């Protein structure tokens, strides 16, 4: 294919893409005006201040119906623009902004005539996003070296379990270390099975999930439930640490700077992973192993070693993240307490396009859907909360299907490397 033809194909694809996005925006606009605007009365009151703030901020009061009409107008304007002037380069950005506006209109409609704490909901968004973010980061690290990790769920669960056992025995920090070691061990097992024994990566991941679920449930009912060992399931919980000065800011303070160690660790790990993957020599090598292991091998990079190390480290991240379930929130372990969060982490990885920051952002979106879903029941909206709970999964299918921009995994993803 010549260069001219290629660019023509790209133009065509972009044209179609912006047409699709335009249509979506128009549909959202009609929906907003009709459902959220028409017949809605009252103001939505969002409380911004949290208890214990040093500076109080007032409530945010939004008239529900007019706000919906304004949002509908903006959505319609952008939609029409995209449909007319096809070939826009910013279609995805506009779609993102459009979706955020749509969600604000939805929230305003849902809270019309009520009030709720917006800051509180955003704070719970961050907390709910936490295990998903750790899971997503694990997925990114594994798949960047072309090892598919379906076993994130099991690694989180193992981290939660060993976190509580080590935490009860030797204190919180030992719990953290134990959780990370257990996760790392599972990562190492995944690496042995898939890299050395070239077992099907998906089967290996499924096995890890089933094995960990079976083992932790067995040990919980067999050992932890017994009177003599009950003290093993009672770990100290890491308290929230207020960052000096920063935590005093209204809204931003409670939102970002009044959390326990896990939240700060998640943000730090995402930053470190991004720097490592995209700004260091080793990171470049790791990505080369994920994209074209043969070429990397030819240049003298030890494909097997890099895969082993990175998958093990990824397992440690998952184990650490899993410890949040016990050491970061309730201090005790329950059977299957991760309840599918690892799979959403996998979705966050895809949603975030195999980038640590993207995965974190996706985790926040999913955490937001989760915490809105919790609020819905209180606000008594006609939309069943189950449908909101489905949103992350539907969104992931849409992204994987490439209906709105395609996410591309590393080229060698899932393929074992056979040295010649």
């Amino acid at each position, binding site marked *: 294919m010549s260069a001219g033809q290629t660019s023509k194909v790209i133009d065509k694809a972009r044209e179609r893409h912006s047409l699709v996005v335009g249509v979506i925006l128009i549909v959202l606009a009609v929906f907003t005006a009709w459902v959220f605007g028409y017949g809605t009365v009252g103001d939505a009151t969002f409380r911004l201040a949290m208890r214990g703030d040093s500076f109080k901020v007032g409530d945010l009061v939004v008239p529900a119906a007019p706000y919906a009409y304004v949002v509908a107008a903006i959505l319609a304007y952008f939609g029409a623009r995209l449909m007319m002037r096809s070939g826009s380069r910013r279609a995805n950005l506009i779609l993102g902004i459009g979706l955020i506006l749509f969600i604000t209109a939805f929230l305003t409609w849902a809270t019309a005539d009520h009030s709720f704490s917006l800051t509180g909901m955003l704070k719970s968004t961050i907390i709910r996003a936490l295990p998903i973010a750790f899971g997503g980061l694990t997925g990114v690290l594994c798949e960047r070296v072309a090892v598919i990790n379906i076993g994130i769920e099991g690694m989180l669960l193992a981290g939660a379990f060993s976190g509580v056992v080590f935490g009860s025995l030797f204190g919180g920090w030992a719990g953290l270390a134990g959780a990370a070691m257990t996760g790392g061990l599972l990562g190492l097992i995944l690496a042995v099975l898939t890299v050395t024994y070239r077992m099907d990566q998906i089967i290996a991941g499924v096995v890890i999930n089933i094995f960990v679920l*079976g083992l932790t449930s067995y040990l919980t009912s067999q050992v932890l439930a017994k009177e003599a060992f009950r003290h093993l399931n009672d770990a100290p919980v890491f308290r929230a640490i207020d960052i000096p000065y920063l935590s005093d800011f209204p809204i931003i303070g409670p939102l970002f700077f009044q959390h326990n160690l896990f939240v700060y660790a998640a943000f730090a790990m995402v930053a470190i992973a991004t720097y490592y993957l995209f700004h260091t020599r080793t990171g470049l090598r790791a990505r080369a192993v994920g994209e074209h292991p043969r070429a990397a091998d030819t240049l003298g990079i030890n494909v097997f070693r890099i895969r082993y190390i990175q998958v093990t480290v990824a397992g440690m991240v998952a184990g650490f993240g899993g410890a949040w379930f016990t050491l970061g929130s309730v201090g005790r372990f329950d059977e299957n307490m991760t309840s599918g969060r690892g799979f959403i982490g996998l979705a966050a990885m895809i949603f975030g396009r195999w980038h640590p920051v993207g995965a974190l952002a996706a985790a926040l979106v999913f955490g937001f859907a989760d915490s809105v879903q919790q609020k819905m029941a209180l606000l008594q909206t006609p939309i069943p909360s189950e449908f909101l709970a489905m949103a992350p999964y539907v969104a992931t299918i849409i992204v994987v299907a490439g209906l709105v921009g395609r996410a591309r995994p590393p080229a060698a993803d899932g393929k074992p490397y056979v040295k010649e």
Partner: protein
Amino acid sequence: MTDSQTGVGSAKKYSVSELLTNPNEVDLKTLLLLPAMAFMTALFLGGVIMFVSGVDFTNIAFSYRALLVGSVGSVFALSETLVAAAPLIIAGLSVAIGFRSGLFNIGAEGQILTGGMAALAVGFSFPELSIWVHLPLSLLAGAIVGAVWGGIAGWLRAVTGAHEVISTIMLNFIALRLVDFSLKTDFFQKTGRNDPISKSVLDSALLPDLLTWIDPQLRVNAGILIAFLVVFLIGWLLFRTTIGFEFRAVGANPDAARYAGIRIGWTFTATMAVAGALGGLTGGVQVLGVLERASPGFSSGIGFEAIAVALLGRAHPTGVLFAGLLFGALEAGGRQMQVDTNVGIDLITIIQSLVIVFVAAPILIKSLYPFAFREHAK
């Protein structure tokens, strides 16, 4: 179809296809010896785990004795084994048929849920139908809805290249939420109840019990007959029809199949639809035969055990039949074990996962028992 999303799929060229047994080359070592060794090793490791968790040697022996007695030791035990095996066999075939075309159906769980709900809806909706009409109609409803649910994943793979592993995992969660939601609607929820419990299936849609004339305690129902029938039908479909040939051709080598004029996209959709139909049928058999109504998450992991069953049975209908019976025996025996010796039934899950490891990575077993697998010079 783009290649960018098929990354996961191409991995199967290396391993899953190695596991599939060609019916024309019967190799007793890989067919029987390996699964048997895998199973024995898993049992041994299960014993080690029991020992580590503080169960003494006598109790370990008693546990395994209870496992044996509870699964095949009496007519009642056999009946329980068959009750547990029926859904595992059908769902195992659902996963196996996916393997045959190189697809990984992790979505049996969701297909069981959606299909089960459909079978349930038909099962409680039409009073005054004869059992000869009502029961088949309910099962058919389950299969059709399951086929649609599975077909979505196949169609997405065919048209957009969305990998079926991801889309079926997501569809599982969507199905779970759909069931939660449905159980709150007036149509499904049992009248006068506030908790998420559905109406009960009418008698005319229940799978008839087979052995209650001997002893009313024997729960084995016509579901196991359906499982046998499905084993036969899928064997025929895979190895005696053009469609089955196309499925296997695409699984063996998609490129060659494409050059031979087989429409890959259509085959992916059809495979997942058939797999989904089997998943939905599993849901129907479970709801109409065992549960008689639905509660949240009533699939209870059958869809995941089915993966193990399909792997252990090497994605061959006969193999899946025996693997399903074995896993059914483990289920039934595990319950007995829990009652008799207080060893948690989750131990069975551990043993099952170890069996998968050893079957999916045969090299582990081969290096543990090199004497059994020594290659003779040809």
